[in-house]
């Protein structure tokens, strides 16, 4: 069977001046992740590589480029999950780490736990020799300006959700062996309270992967995604026989109806079906399968590029 990798750069009202860079960013991350699959790497390796690429890209709200909390600090959340074993690793509210997704993977592989938070996650990083980076290395000029602009969270919440940066990043993949995996990483909501944990690191919300049904990575209004456990909800529809696209649409529609939340999700099934769906104005996404790069930003947009072999 053929391997597939899909990435997203966050579902929200991406302003025009970030549109081009967002699309270029997800295309590059999708190609980077797919190269891992092509070289025989696992789905887990591929989603980690793709998300690391997005974390390094200052355009996205994860790793470098993360949103700042109300104190002007960067606190990062991330999850990774292996559909073969249901093994999972996550970190919440971790500081001074360039690649939270890799730290999440280390939690999965080097501890008996699933999730480490705050200082404990940093102590663990230190114990396994993960280098720390100064906060300023993660902060872009744009984020510092935005933080100053709506310094109080109250100013933030009265704004339309869509006007806020919610651009969590994520990836899902299926490898040649039919194993699926997901990874999600974020800086969270701009001007969030100190210690706020969103959907991204919470299993079944920000992501879920199961070889019996598929893998999902979610983005959008975190508190809404949590309320409906969006990733797990999409997979339950797939378990009931829905296609990946139908399952995503049903679940996002439900989230809109029930808790008035907008968002997006990327999904792969173990047989290589995939979809990128959103109810926000835009979501930058890209997918690679069979030497073809697919990508889009607007609803129903689906562009295609042949990759050189």
């Amino acid at each position: 069977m053929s391997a597939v990798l899909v990435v997203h750069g966050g579902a929200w009202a991406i302003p025009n001046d970030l549109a081009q860079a967002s699309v270029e960013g997800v295309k590059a991350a999708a190609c980077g992740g797919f190269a891992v699959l092509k070289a025989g790497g696992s789905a887990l390796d591929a989603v980690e590589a793709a998300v690391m690429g997005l974390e390094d890209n200052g355009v996205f709200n994860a790793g470098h480029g993360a949103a700042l909390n109300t104190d002007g600090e960067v606190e990062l959340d991330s999850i990774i999950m292996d559909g073969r074993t249901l093994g999972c690793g996550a970190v919440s509210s971790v500081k001074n780490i360039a690649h939270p997704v890799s730290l999440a993977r280390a939690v999965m592989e080097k501890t008996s736990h699933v999730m480490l938070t705050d200082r404990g996650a940093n102590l663990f990083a230190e114990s396994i020799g993960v280098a720390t980076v100064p906060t300023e290395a993660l902060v872009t000029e744009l984020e510092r300006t935005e933080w100053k602009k709506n310094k109080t969270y109250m100013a933030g919440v009265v704004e339309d959700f869509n006007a806020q940066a919610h651009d969590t990043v994520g990836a899902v993949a299926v490898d040649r062996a039919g194993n699926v995996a997901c990874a999600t990483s974020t800086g969270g909501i701009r001007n969030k309270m100190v210690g706020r944990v969103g959907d991204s690191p919470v299993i079944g919300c920000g992501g879920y992967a199961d070889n019996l049904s598929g893998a999902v990575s979610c983005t959008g209004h975190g508190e809404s995604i949590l309320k409906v456990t969006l990733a797990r909800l999409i997979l339950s529809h797939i378990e009931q026989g829905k296609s990946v696209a139908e399952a995503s649409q049903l679940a996002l529609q439900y989230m809109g109806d029930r808790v008035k939340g907008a968002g997006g999700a990327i999904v792969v099934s173990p047989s290589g079906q995939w979809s990128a769906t959103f109810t926000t104005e835009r979501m930058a996404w890209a997918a690679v399968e069979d030497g073809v790069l697919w990508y889009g930003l607007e609803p129903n947009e689906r562009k295609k590029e042949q990759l050189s072999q």
Partner: protein
Amino acid sequence: MLPVVVVHGGAGHVPRTRAEQSLSGVCSAARGGYAVLRGGGSSMDAVVEAVRILENDPHFNAGCGSVLNVRGDVEMDAIVMDGRTLSSGAVSAVRNIANPVQLARLVMDKTSHACLTAGGAQQFARSLGVPEVPQESLITEYSRMRWKKNLAPDANPVECQMGKMGTVGAVAVDREGNVACATSTGGMLNKMEGRVGDTPCIGSGGYADNQSGAVSTTGVGEAIMKVTLARLILFHMEQGQSVEAASDLGLAHMKSRVGGLGGVVTVDPQGRWAARFNSLQMAWAAGQNGTLHYGLYAGEDFTQSMDPDQDPDQGHGPPPAGVRH
């Protein structure tokens, strides 16, 4: 059928010397939660009250009596969820708080967020004037002894874990048919600093939805997370399974897929309830129709009448001999 409250005091193996105290603790909590419902309180009020009583009881691994992490500190997790709105509040790895379940409810009621962690949760507590308590007030001699024992080079951590899990939780349905859940824990004995288990994770430690029901879980946290046990059980109920069958299906799946044992309390909006587990024991109690139900081993369902005039906070002694069904 309504109202109803069901509580658990954790799935695992309760040492014989502590079995009676565990049973009497869950019975007190069920009485307390039931009194709230009978007084016209919401299911959310009832589950928070029941879990608060269990947190204050040093025989359970939540609030006072929490297990210690590898450094000998207490870090607690809790969640509440309201099935009417799907709103939830949670705290993870929080310290120096006597009743994390109440702080979780404040996160739900007073912030636009659903989960606050560690120092941020404490900062939030301070901003609302929630009193901080010294860590020593949360530590029992028993939990200190077990922490030391587990640090020994020949300790068998898995065996010790099964000795006392003691996460506590409650589910309830009020007269209006609204469901709610609450779960609270000190986590896993000798866990790493900052370890977050299933308890504060929505869909794992608990879930509540007026359209299907409410669940609170206990057991091996990492296994519960891998199968999002609470949400899984409610999926089964959405597919038409009874509270009992759905609970058993979820627990069986967890055992076969990831090798973990645990227990759950489950209600549906009509007031049907179940307390199910595949561990050796789970202390549980339920209040419905003026009757208290309780048990510890599989198949047990002792009952006793609840005097409507009785103070719900009474009954700290062992439960009077019940009727075995």
